[in-house]
Structure formats: structure tokens, C-alpha cells
């Protein structure tokens, strides 16, 4: 749980360097613009509004995280951005052009493993360029570089079932990047990984992001992950899915795991936590447990 010590710093407070970074960020061109997007799902019990009036922008080379309670429409949002779902109202613009259907300019990494089991690691990475009409001879060397970048050179001829979960997601990242997308959309890509692998993958992703001209929109439900990775965090609330707040993370870059206990980090996390779980402001929820044992010891 998060220690209740928010009075150390205000999460709004930014050092001059951080302020400068955000000023620069906002001067960059807008890669992705989401204009008043609303999504309704028709169901048997009437229309379910999954997203309501979502409006935000992502700047070039920005790392933006989306966080929110389960069922608030995070996946729906990213699927609309990827073109896998069509919004009911509003518009999505990529570099100023409206998005219509899925395309190689928006790479996507899914939470579930979506490598093609019949292709080797290298063939998986070459899949996108091949679909967009490049010759195999051209793209093979390119694919090798991407595989090398995610540290899987030894496995380029392995099949996905021979890889661990973390390795599979690394290949998925390489596969998405091989298309040179304008933006990388990631829907809880590390959700199924264990804590250590996940920490490794986060560091990996930051390293890749720093070295490539790539914009990332990253969905997570993990507060640490969001604050550790993001420039800005878009907090959604549920029923219907609406933007609660867009937070500029005041933790300076480059980031490291040591910052997890820095005051800015904790303050930001605390703030988001209160947005997502407002009921925890007081003494916490009162749960009624049946008395199960006669032990009677008080563990706290």
C-alpha cells in the first residue's frame, strides 16, 4: 500500500528542468489527436457507453500512459486508436489525417501473446514489412537488427512456443517496430509477466524509446509502471469512461528504479491512487469477515 505521506511535495510541483522538458514536449508536433471520441456498445440490455467525450493529444516522442479502474474502457480506447474498433462519435487523427481501420502506421502490442506460431522469430518480425510489399531479401537484415535490439539474436530461428512470456513480448515489440510505425500502442503488454521480468521489460522499453523516434501510448493498471514510464498519465474513470485528469509526471528523466521512493514519485502515485480509488480516502472499506478461528491473536 502507499504510505500516506502526500504532504512531502505536491505532485504538481516541477523542478525547472522538468518544466523545461514539458515546454519542449508541447512544442513538438502532435502525432495523435483524439477529438471528442465516444463509444457506445449496443447490448441486449440497451446501449453501454464505454467511452464518453475523450479528448487529448499525444506529442511526437512522448511516452503517454493510460490508467484507470478495470472496465473503464482502456482497451476500447486503444482498439479505436488501432482501428480495430470504430468510434460512435468523434475523430482520431494521426499526423492530422483521420484514422480509418487498422494500419502499419500504428503498431500494436497486445496483452495476450499474438506471435504467429507457425513463423519463426525472424519471420514474425518480417511479417509486417512483407505485408506492406517489401521484398524478403531487403527486410531480412533489417529484421535481424530489430531482433538484436531486443536481445534475441540467438533465438531468431526459434518458434514462439519455445520462448518464455517475456521473450514473446520482446519479439512482439520488435515486430511492431519493424514497420516503423508513427506510434506504438501497447495494451497492458507486461500484464501477464512476473514482477522481475516485468521490471526488466520496463527498463528495456524505456531504452528503446530513448533511442528511437517513436511515440508510445501505453495502457496499464499498475501505478508504479505508469509513473516510472510516462511523461504524462491519462487517468480514466469508469461508467462511462471519461478523462479524469491528465497528469504531467514530475519525476525527472532518465528514470531508474531508485526513484520509486523519491517524494515526487510517491506523491504522483498517491494522487492517482486517490483518483482511481476515491473510497480509500477514509479508513478504507469496512469488510465484515466471519470469525474463522478461535486463535484470537491480533496479527497487527
Amino acid at each position, binding site marked *: 500500500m502507499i504510505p500516506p505521506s502526500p504532504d512531502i511535495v505536491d505532485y504538481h510541483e516541477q523542478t525547472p528542468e522538468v518544466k523545461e522538458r514539458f515546454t519542449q514536449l508541447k512544442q513538438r508536433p502532435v502525432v495523435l489527436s483524439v477529438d471528442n471520441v465516444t463509444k457506445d456498445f449496443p447490448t441486449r440490455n440497451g446501449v453501454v457507453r464505454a467511452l464518453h467525450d475523450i479528448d487529448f493529444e499525444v506529442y511526437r516522442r512522448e511516452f503517454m500512459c493510460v490508467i484507470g479502474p478495470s472496465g473503464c474502457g482502456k482497451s476500447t480506447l486503444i482498439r479505436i486508436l488501432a482501428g*480495430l474498433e470504430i468510434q460512435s462519435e468523434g475523430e482520431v487523427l494521426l499526423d492530422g489525417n483521420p484514422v480509418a481501420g*487498422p494500419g502499419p502506421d500504428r503498431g500494436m502490442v497486445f496483452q495476450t501473446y499474438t506471435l504467429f506460431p507457425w513463423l519463426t522469430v525472424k519471420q514474425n518480425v518480417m511479417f509486417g514489412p512483407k505485408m506492406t510489399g517489401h521484398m524478403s531479401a531487403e527486410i531480412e537484415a533489417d529484421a535481424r537488427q530489430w531482433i538484436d535490439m531486443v536481445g534475441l539474436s540467438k533465438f531468431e530461428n526459434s518458434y514462439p512456443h519455445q520462448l518464455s512470456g517475456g521473450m514473446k513480448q520482446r519479439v512482439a515489440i520488435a515486430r511492431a517496430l519493424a514497420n516503423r510505425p508513427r506510434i506504438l500502442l501497447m495494451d497492458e503488454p507486461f500484464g501477464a509477466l512476473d514482477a522481475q521480468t516485468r521490471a526488466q521489460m520496463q527498463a528495456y522499453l524505456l531504452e528503446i524509446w530513448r533511442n528511437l523516434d517513436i511515440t508510445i501510448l501505453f495502457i496499464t493498471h499498475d501505478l508504479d509502471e505508469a509513473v516510472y514510464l510516462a511523461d504524462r498519465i491519462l487517468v480514466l474513470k469508469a461508467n462511462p469512461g471519461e478523462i479524469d485528469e491528465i497528469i504531467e509526471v514530475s519525476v525527472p528523466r532518465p528514470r531508474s528504479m531508485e526513484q520509486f521512493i523519491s517524494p515526487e514519485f510517491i506523491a504522483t502515485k498517491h494522487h492517482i491512487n486517490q483518483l482511481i480509488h476515491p473510497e480509500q480516502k477514509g479508513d478504507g472499506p469496512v469488510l465484515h469477515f466471519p470469525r474463522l478461528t478461535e486463535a484470537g491473536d491480533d496479527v497487527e
Partner: protein
Amino acid sequence: MGESPSGKKLKVKEPWFAVRRELPSHRASVLTAISFILPLLIWSAVSYLPFLWHPDIKLQLSADRKDVTTVYTAGDRVSKEFFPEFQEAVRSQNEELEAQLKSDDPLAGSSESSVRRANKKVLRHLAPVLESNGWITSEQTKEDELIYEAWKDVATGKRKLKSPGLSEENIEIAKQNWNAMSAVSPVYDSDNFISVPLLSLVPQGKPSNPDYLPAPHHVASSGLEVLMMPAEGDRPSMVQRIGHSIRIVFGGFLLSALIGIPIGVLCGTYAFFSRLIEPFTDFFRYMPAPTFSTLLVAIFLANDAPKIALVFVGTFFQMVLVVSNTTRGLNMNLLEAAQTLGAKQSQLLTHVVIPGILPSMYNDLRILLGWAWTWLVIAELVGVKSGLTEFIESQGRYRNFDLVFPVIILIGLIGFFTDQFLAFLRGIIFPWTKEGEAMSSHPVAKVILFIPRLIKKAFSSKTSPAPTPQAGQP
């Protein structure tokens, strides 16, 4: 690890019965062996242990009964209940005869020639026993001179019948008959054959199973004979029959795969085709294929065409539905991922759907091939009977079940080994599946996988080396 506090080695006992848990490989193979040995043992036990079942008596020696038209010959089976009755009838017939011989009228009004004819029959009743003892060959069963000699040897005790032997009462009868016969002529003389009635030998037999359950050794020996059966006139040899049957199964099956798979894949991929084709297919498959047989003969006339068509009708509609279901079972996420990677609609079909469903479809086809074998039996009875089924049909009608069984087993073996081979091949064709991994180290797999690699190598050496593109820019 493995040490209990008391210092004793803890041995983890693996249970034989655990829900959905694979057994260790040695146990699994033992059970696999037993799965075949057990039925064979049961069959052998029922065949060779006379106290198990054996509801019939197989006659080794038969006799004619007066005024009864049903004639049993050696080799026939009679029920266990009826056999003593049969023996009793012959005995009392003999008693009557003895009384008659002592009376004033030993011929009881019959003519000498008719008595002589009846006596010759009695003489020959011993022939089957002589044959199985090896005293005469199967061609000599009508050579009365030899049989006459044999009667003499049996009666005088010069030679003894062993397998089967004669019962005491029958040896007694043989002696009596021989005394009477030798008094007329010491050697066989057709014209001067005894004209006072001879006693009948009392039927002998041993417990046996009905003819529809031949014993394993019997099936094995006649199996070899059946397999080697040469062509005779317009009767094809067994090998030709097998070839014919396989042609019909695979002809019908491949035809329905050729048409059914593309339609099934289209139905599973596009709702348009699914709605257009599947409802009718679903209805049609409930009409049993054999009901179309006369129709198919009318359309395709004689020979193989209607037979192949029947196998086709039997498998095609199932194939469309099964393949479309398998296609629909493809993980939707793979299709979405492919789209975000830039695959267009047409590419989805060729680059995701088809490679993605191949392993499951391969298994579907294995099951459907089993169906095709089932339809074969009906197909071969359509129009002009042919192939293995024709043999089973005709031999079965003569109750030659020892010839029928090997052919039934043969069909089973062909189907079984085809399927096992295809299962083995699956791991080689689809190295990305779990089975494939285990398979890739198999020697046969290595040879098979070597060929495409060789071809690839030959081609890749001709193409120019790829230009090195840059990875992402900072």
C-alpha cells in the same frame, strides 16, 4: 530433497489414476501394448479353453439317421444339447438293426442293391477321420479300396486311429462290421459288396465355438492364404482388391477434400459464405449417404464412379462444416495483430488464416479419412460389387468366416497404420507445434526436413545479398 527427517529415502509414489494427468512413458507404453494384447488374449481364451463358451459340437464322425432328411457330415456343428440326442438316435437305430439281423428277414423288405448302397455310405463315414489321421489324403476320400483296408486295420487292431481316435463303442462296431464284410470279401469289391445291413458308427465330435468365431491360429493361417490369393479368371487377386479399395477410399476422400476444404475455409473466414452455404450443408449431411446409392448408380452408371461418388457424398458435407468450424476457431487476436501490422483483407486469408488452421485441419482430415473407410464398405456394394467388401460378402454368405476375419482385420490395419503414419507426419510437417518439437530430432524427420532445406539453399545462393537497411534512427 527426498530425505525424510527419519533419514529414510522418501519415494514419491506416482498414482496410476490421476485426473487428466499423463502417465510416465514406460507405463504408457505398457498400457498401449496391453490394449492390443488383452483383446487377443480374450479371443484366444474363448477359442482355446473348451470350458469357456463352446456352445457347439463340431462333428468328426457323422452318421445317417433313418427317415430323417437333415444330413450332418463331418465338420458340421450341432448344438451341445442336440448332440447326445443325435448319438442316441444312431445307437437305437443300431439296436433295431441288430434285432432285425437276428430275425427271419434281415433285409426288412429292402432290396439287396439298396442295402448295398446304404452300406457303401456307412463305409465312407470313416473317411473324414482317416483323413485327419493322415491315413488318406483329401483326394482319396472316395477311394473305397483304401477305406476298406482302413476298416480292416482298425478292426484287427493293426493300426490305431489317434487324432481323433475312435470311441470304444465305435471300435466294437468296426469289428462287427469288418467281420461281416470280410466274410463276403477280404478286399473291396464293388459288385460283391456286403448286402446285409451294416451298423452305423456313432457320431463323434468335440466342443467348439460357432463358425462365426474362428480361432486366432485359424484366422492367421487362412489370413496368409487369403492375402496371397492369386487372380483367377475375372476374380482379382487379394492385392488387386486392396488396391481397388484404397483407390475408392482415397479417390472419394481427395475429391471431397479438394472441393470441401476451400469451401470450408471460405465459410469459416467470411460470414457471407457461411450464411450462404452452411445452412443447406447442415441439412444435407443428415441425409445418410447410402440412401443416395441407387441415384448415384443411375447418374454415374457402373464401375468405380458411383462408389467414389458415395464416399464423396459421405465425407464432403461433414468436411465443409468441420473445416469451417476449425477456421472459425482460429485465435481472433492473431487476425487483429496481423491487421495492425498492415495485412490487408486478402493477405489475412493467405498469410494468417490458412497457415494458422493447417495443424487442426490436418487432424480433422485424419478423422474424416476414418469416415471415408466406413463409407467404403457400402460403396463397394453399390452397383457391381467389388474390392475387399465383395470378398467379405461372398465368403460370408458361404459362412467362410475364417476367410472373412482376415479381410476385416486387414481393413482395420490399413486404416490404423495410415492414421498412425499421418499422426507421425504431422509433427514433421508442422514443426512449430508441440508435437513438432519432439519430432524434429527423429531420424526420419531429419531426412524429410533436409530436402526442403537443400532446395532452399540451392535457391538462396543465386539471390543477391540483401542491402543493409538502418534500424530506427535516434
